């Protein structure tokens, strides 16, 4: 019964979305206040009904109701409770239900926090949001119903894919979806602005917090997925340029560009048309990602949704929204007035530079991901595009962007003085060159990693220098504390965001250049020296868990000091229901950021194949992304963004820090 209530609630949510997609927009056209005001309560109602639907499916998973097809296919009575819950979205139908639930959540949040938006804008935004919602409710209900029942309920379920029985699954998809779907708000705002034919700096101020929120979640989601892959798969890699990863990277790159161009729009009333286009692109790329993953169109190892009906349906949604919004853009963009002038060397110029390179980067990932599909569809030719392609194209494209990054925040609006910036960064430049030389001398006269370390130093110290310059630490230390407190939060957010990029780069360079890998067969009693560690295979121990059995390889690791040995226990697990083996790696962190990584392979003769890695500074990759996300959150707390839109007295308050920048 509860499951049927869930199903029915989802249908009701669709009905509400249908009303919401028409009435408020009609009200905005006719100037009917009551029709426009409907949008708010309906969005909240929509969210309530989807939440009921989602709770119903969760309930079915928690109580292991195997009469529900979705539960039968993805759950098992002995599965631990956390995976029963995360298993709700560990499958196609459930994950699409999560998708629409998050969409409805964002709609309700806009209705709630957007009460001080201009009435027509709010009505149009929520109307457009409902169009997206209608499309995806239909998709779930018509092609991916999670509530379908069996006539004859089976006794036991098939269990969840063992690789997904990990805490990573509990966190990674919700974060990623909050990011993906969050860009729908920027999209709805852009479409609403085009419908109204009016856009101003206030628009950017309303859109920016939503974009920033989505960006923070997407950053965390991608980073989390990357770390999950790193520890779960046992290959020691953290990014594979797989099409499905690229699908999440594209909206991230476009979203990052959007965050930056919206600043120009907010502060200087410039780049309006471009910002609108980016808002459309960011969400279109999210939709593209959903299509690529959910349709199984990629001849990717990931294609586990291979039902063509679904693919065609999402492709329809994609064409409708991307095509529709771009048509609207083409028709209306010219009506938007162009704003502020600026010299090439200026803060605006720097942000345009940022946008140029991020867009080129997005285009690179786009063409690399889709080119094999397009080539095969048009000529039948089959080619592969993999990591070596992206390393050669995307990598070099990002270098100028990273070199320029610390200089941007130093430049003044309208017209900047590049010489003054260089002067202010002179010390940082010297230190970066020193970092290159020291790395080159200490680390085997290898120039590329040395340059990488230099660039990372430049990024970290450069962003630090900017914030220290702003609080006048070197010129007027007596006022520094007061200025540090008075500085707008967005300035601290910028600092953290940029600093995090440097930290991440340092991790990438160190891991890439100085990782050590050993592949060998080991028997109990064997030991091997890896970097400064002595890794000794003690014995193999059988063990069992709630729904799996495993063989643990017990290792003792000494690090060349008198510290007691550390026990590391990689294992090979077999999940009983699917009788599928998985590798559980053992990872030990040394010196805060570096890791020793043990993964067990197949048995070979009397021994077992082992992969042992030393990964210097590898954790910095994810710590860097975490710092970037924290920067986003700090920026969100900036008072000019706090409530979405400034009320009149807040405008006065916000003008001061804005002028100070």
């Amino acid at each position, binding site marked *: 019964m509860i499951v049927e209530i869930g199903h029915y609630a989802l249908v009701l949510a669709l009905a509400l979305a249908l009303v919401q997609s028409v009435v408020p927009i009609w009200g905005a056209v006719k100037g009917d206040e009551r029709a426009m005001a409907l949008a708010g309560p309906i969005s909240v109602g929509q969210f309530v009904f989807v939440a009921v639907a989602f709770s119903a499916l969760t309930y079915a998973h928690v109580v292991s109701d195997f009469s529900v097809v979705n539960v039968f296919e993805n759950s098992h009575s002995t599965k631990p409770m956390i995976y029963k819950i995360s298993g709700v979205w560990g499958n196609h139908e459930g994950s699409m239900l999560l998708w629409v639930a998050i969409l409805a959540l964002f709609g309700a949040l806009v209705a709630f926090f957007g009460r001080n938006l201009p009435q027509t804008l709010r009505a149009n935004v929520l109307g457009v949001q409902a169009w997206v919602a209608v499309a995806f409710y239909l998709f779930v209900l018509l092609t991916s119903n999670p509530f379908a029942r069996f006539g004859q309920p089976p006794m036991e379920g098939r269990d969840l894919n063992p690789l997904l029985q990990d805490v990573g699954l509990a966190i990674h998809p919700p974060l990623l979806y909050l990011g993906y779907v969050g860009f729908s708000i920027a999209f709805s705002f852009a479409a609403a602005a085009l419908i109204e034919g009016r856009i101003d700096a206030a628009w950017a101020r309303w859109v920016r917090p939503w974009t920033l929120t989505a960006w923070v979640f997407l950053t965390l989601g991608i980073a989390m997925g990357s770390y999950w892959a790193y520890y779960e798969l046992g290959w020691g890699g953290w990014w*594979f340029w797989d099409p499905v990863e690229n699908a999440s990277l594209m909206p991230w790159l476009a979203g990052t560009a959007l965050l930056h161009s919206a600043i120009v729009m907010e502060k200087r009333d410039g780049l309006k048309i471009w910002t609108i286009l980016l808002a459309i692109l960011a969400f279109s790329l999210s939709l593209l990602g959903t299509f690529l993953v959910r349709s199984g169109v990629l001849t990717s190892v990931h294609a586990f949704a291979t039902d063509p009906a679904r693919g065609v349906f999402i492709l329809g949604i994609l064409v409708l929204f991307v095509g529709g919004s771009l048509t609207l853009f083409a028709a209306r963009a010219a009506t938007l007035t*162009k704003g502020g*002038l600026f010299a090439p060397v200026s803060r605006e110029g720097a942000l345009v530079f940022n946008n140029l*390179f991020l867009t080129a980067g997005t285009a690179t990932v786009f063409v690399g991901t889709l080119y094999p599909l397009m080539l095969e569809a048009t000529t039948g030719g089959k080619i592969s595009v*993999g*990591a070596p392609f992206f390393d050669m194209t995307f990598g070099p494209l990002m270098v100028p962007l990273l070199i320029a990054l610390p200089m941007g925040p130093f430049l003044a609006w*309208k017209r900047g003085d590049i010489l003054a910036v260089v002067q202010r960064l002179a010390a940082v430049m010297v230190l970066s060159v020193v970092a290159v030389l020291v790395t080159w001398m200490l680390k085997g006269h290898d120039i590329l990693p040395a340059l990488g370390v230099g660039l990372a130093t430049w990024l970290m110290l450069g962003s630090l220098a900017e914030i220290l310059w702003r609080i006048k630490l070197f010129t007027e230390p007596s006022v520094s504390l007061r200025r540090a407190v008075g500085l707008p939060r967005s300035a601290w957010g910028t600092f953290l965001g940029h600093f995090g990029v440097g930290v991440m780069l340092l991790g990438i360079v160190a891991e890439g250049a100085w990782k050590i890998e050993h592949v060998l067969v080991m028997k109990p009693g064997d030991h091997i020296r890896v970097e400064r560690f002595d890794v000794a295979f003690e014995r193999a121990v059988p063990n069992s868990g709630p729904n799996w059995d495993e063989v643990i390889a017990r290792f003792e690791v000494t690090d060349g000091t008198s510290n007691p040995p550390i026990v590391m226990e990689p294992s090979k697990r077999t999940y009983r229901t699917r009788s599928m083996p998985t590798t559980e790696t053992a990872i030990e962190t040394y010196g805060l950021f570096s890791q020793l990584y043990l993964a067990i392979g197949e048995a070979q003769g009397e021994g077992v194949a082992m992969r042992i890695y030393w990964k210097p500074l590898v954790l910095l990759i994810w710590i860097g992304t975490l710092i970037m996300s924290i920067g986003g959150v700090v920026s969100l707390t900036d008072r000019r963004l706090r409530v979405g839109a400034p009320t009149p007295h807040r405008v006065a308050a916000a003008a001061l820090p804005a002028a100070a920048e």
Partner: protein
Amino acid sequence: MSFRRAAAALALSLLAGPAVAVQPDEMLSDPKLEARARELSGELRCLVCQNQSIDDSDAPLAKDLRVLVRERIKTGDTNTQVLDYLVARYGEFVLLRPRFNAHTAILWTLPFAVLILGAGGIFLALRRRSARAGSIEAPLSAEEKARLDEILARES
């Protein structure tokens, strides 16, 4: 997007055992040659598991290719010769970094074309706009400058 790596591993483990690619018994004893073999393996696609290099994949075909690459290296092939040999047998599909030719010209040039065209577009837009609006800031006239100096002097 959601379970991407896990699903990658799922597919792999369906094809073969757990995810450990290059096996100890395949490796060459000369570390220099082995390093070359590993480098080449990262450039070659495992044809059956797709989107995985033979270095990452555990499929039997990937193993065959790894062994083949090492055999060619041992007989004295250069890296290019090894790649040519594999392309002759399996087609361009085996390369993860497609070669530049008529089929892939767009792929290789588009990233840089976007950059150059974008830069050109921005340059033109800036020039057109500043031409229309005159210079961004007219320099101060002598009178204005005198007045500014006066104000600054008063302030300090």
